[in-house]
């Protein structure tokens, strides 16, 4: 196998929104350093924004006094039922406007209202003509990075003899070349995780999930194996979307003001408000905050569906007219084209009839209405007084967005406890991480990496093992993919999705679980990990890509289950409920759940960290 070694000053893993932001900012602060971005697809159209978007979901509008970062922190904290890092969320909010103004300058068409301000979709969101959003952002990254490696998948991070970050290994998914990237600073921005739970779509349609198929949980897999402290992995979530096509609902609800009801035309949340208040109000009165937290709205829909009063309808027919029709359709065509095809295929006229809404299978993400990811240091001006010497339980250890591993930074879906960033906030967090990464690089300029070559050799052998296994065993069977000695990625993935769905609160078990079920999940995941190590087989480099994506998904899933087991309460009931701990418990559990994985011993250490409120609650 051909090998290439690339020496870098700053290595960026994943060229989505956060990765592109990191490249831009790193170059601004460091004119001569070698900034290398590695992307498993093509940066022009990669990541969650590959298709485009029709809205920017995080914009303060401080120049027009529309919002304040404090207001944003309060909103986000309510939506996450009281558990967020105020310092991280505030930090994104205070910088996000400059990101959006750059996008505007670069040529992203942002809609305007009659005052010339950006057209608001809702309080925090603005409307765009965003078909080319990613291509525009990628252009900026290409002008910033020294080199971009497209179609190279990173499989593992490397640490040096002093347990500091030293780079990453991966392979070219087209010609198989083995890559070693040596770097003191690594920014992981490899996106979230779809396809860890059985999707509602099946067979040929299985690729149609809300978060894209290529969101492979790599960020989590890489960070977990590197021993970074993870946070809030239990807060995996599901989104209410148009049934089958997964069309977005934001513009329909916020801008077009369409209402959702059960089949009888009733408002699900109003029907169940009392019940929800009793179990889930906590100390902050979540059932009565405005807007209602996303998970509580999802919960009320689920209650109606369970009672047989479904489907839940979005009443497009009450709001869509010839005048605003274009807006409704563009919302789909910019970011979920398949919903338009579902309407066309099923002869649905949205001006005449409502469309069904259904909560999706769960996803792991750090940038949307949830907060999975690595535990990271906050900004110095806010967080430096919140340090206690133990990184895994502090808010600050020197470098903003550095994980608990020296030299390993995180942004976007990879950074935990920092929700509601969306596209603009992810780019912004990439910028924040890159500025402090440059600082780290300057502070450590006299250090030299001590990488053990035999470790790299072992990583290389391990990476291609599935192909070796296939070549060794392929003549044992006549044809096909049923073998006693081989497990293909799609077989392993099906097993993962089934066990997560059935035991770890997927849609198939009405998003409900318990200690018993989670322990079953854990047992089966352990066996799946063993099978991956002993049986994973790949016929070619494309399958090898899918195989390593599966590994990252398995690690993500294990972290999720370990975290869910630890949290003995039901904190986000629309996302999942614990049948054995059915209520929210603010006294015991308004805490972060953090974990650290020991990849040698294959064991997890799990612990809680108190939530510190920094912004006055209004």
């Amino acid at each position: 196998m051909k090998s290439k070694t690339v020496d870098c000053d700053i290595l960026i893993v994943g060229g989505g929104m956060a990765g592109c932001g990191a490249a831009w900012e790193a170059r601004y602060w460091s004119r001569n350093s070698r900034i290398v971005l590695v992307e498993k697809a093509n940066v022009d159209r990669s990541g969650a924004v590959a298709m485009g978007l029709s809205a920017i979901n995080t914009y303060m509008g401080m120049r027009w006094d529309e919002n304040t970062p404090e207001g944003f922190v309060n909103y986000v904290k309510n939506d996450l039922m009281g558990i967020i890092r105020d310092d991280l969320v505030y930090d994104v909010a205070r910088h996000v406007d400059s990101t959006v103004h750059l996008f505007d300058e670069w040529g992203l068409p942002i809609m305007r209202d009659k005052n010339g301000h950006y057209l608001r979709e809702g309080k925090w969101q603005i409307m765009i003509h965003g078909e080319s959003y990613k291509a525009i952002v990628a252009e900026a990254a290409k002008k910033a990075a020294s080199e971009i490696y497209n179609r190279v998948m990173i499989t593992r991070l490397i640490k040096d003899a002093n347990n500091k970050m030293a780079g990453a290994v991966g392979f070219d998914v087209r010609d198989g070349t083995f890559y070693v990237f040596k770097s003191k600073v690594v920014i992981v921005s490899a996106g979230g995780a779809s396809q860890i739970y059985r999707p509602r779509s099946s067979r040929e349609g299985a690729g149609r999930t809300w978060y894209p198929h290529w969101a492979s949980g790599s960020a989590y897999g890489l960070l977990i194996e590197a021993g970074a402290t993870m946070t809030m992995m239990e807060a995996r979530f599901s989104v209410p979307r148009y049934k089958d096509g997964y069309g977005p609902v934001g513009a329909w609800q916020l801008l077009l003001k369409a209402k959702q009801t059960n089949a009888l035309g009733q408002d699900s949340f109003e029907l169940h408000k009392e019940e929800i208040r009793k179990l889930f109000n906590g100390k902050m009165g979540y059932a009565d905050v405005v807007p209602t937290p996303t998970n509580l709205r999802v919960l009320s829909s689920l209650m109606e569906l369970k009672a047989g009063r479904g489907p839940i309808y979005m009443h497009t027919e009450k709001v869509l007219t010839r005048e605003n029709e274009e807006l409704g359709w563009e919302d789909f065509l910019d970011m979920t084209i398949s919903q338009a095809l579902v309407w066309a295929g099923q002869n649905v006229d949205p001006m005449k009839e409502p469309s069904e809404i259904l909560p999706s299978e769960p996803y792991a993400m750090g940038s949307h209405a949830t907060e999975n990811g690595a535990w990271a240091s906050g900004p110095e001006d806010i967080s430096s007084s919140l340090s206690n010497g133990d990184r895994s339980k502090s808010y600050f250890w020197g470098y903003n967005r550095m994980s608990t591993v020296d030299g390993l930074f995180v942004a976007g879906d990879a950074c935990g406890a920092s929700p509601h960033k969306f596209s603009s906030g992810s780019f912004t967090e990439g910028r924040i991480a890159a500025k402090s990464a440059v600082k780290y690089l300057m502070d450590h300029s006299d250090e030299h990496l001590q990488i053990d070559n035999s470790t790299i050799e072992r990583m290389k052998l391990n990476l291609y093992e599935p192909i070796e296994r296939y070549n060794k065993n392929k003549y044992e069977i006549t044809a096909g993919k049923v073998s006693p000695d081989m497990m293909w990625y799609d077989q392993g993935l099906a097993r993962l999705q089934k066990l997560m769905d059935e035991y770890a609160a997927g849609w198939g078990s009405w998003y409900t679980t318990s200690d018993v079920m989670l322990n079953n999940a854990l047992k089966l995941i352990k066996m799946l990990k063993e099978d991956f190590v002993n049986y994973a087989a790949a016929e070619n480099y494309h399958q090898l890509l899918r195989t390593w994506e599966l590994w990252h998904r398995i690690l993500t899933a294990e972290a999720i289950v370990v975290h869910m087991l630890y949290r003995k309460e039901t904190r986000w009931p629309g996302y999942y409920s614990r049948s054995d701990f059915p209520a929210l418990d603010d006294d015991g559990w308004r805490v972060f759940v953090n974990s650290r994985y020991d990849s040698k011993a294959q064991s997890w250490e799990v612990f809680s960290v108190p939530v510190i409120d920094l912004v006055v609650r209004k």
Partner: protein
Amino acid sequence: MPTFVYASKCSGCGDCVDICPSDIIHFDRKSRKAYNIEPDACWECLNCVKVCGRQAVDVRGYADFVPMGASITVVRDDRKNTIEWNISYRNGTRKKFSFPIRTTEWGSIKPPSEYPQAEMGKTEELSLEPEKLYINSVPSIKGEKN
């Protein structure tokens, strides 16, 4: 709606192979034409469709929930900076939309290295801040428990 390629139209240029975020458009070894090797990993982002100058890539609604007969075609023009959509229903209803995709020329973004560099110092300002925020300074809160 996973994608497929019309044999008569594909010239084998490779543009779709190059762009697919899912790495599922590959060449068929024998014909040297592109095809979707893994339809159940297709997100229907239509990037392959948009990039094909010969309109050789098309989509057919997912077999598990989209009835046959509907179609969506798209023409993305990066000189006029517009995108045109044509939607055709199973029952023959047609919809046509056109949207802008960019307000500036492709390639016109000024690299970050061409801006004067600020002092890194100890401030919390990111590149081009506070000017690009259009407010006087980067806001802050004190890290003290309320």
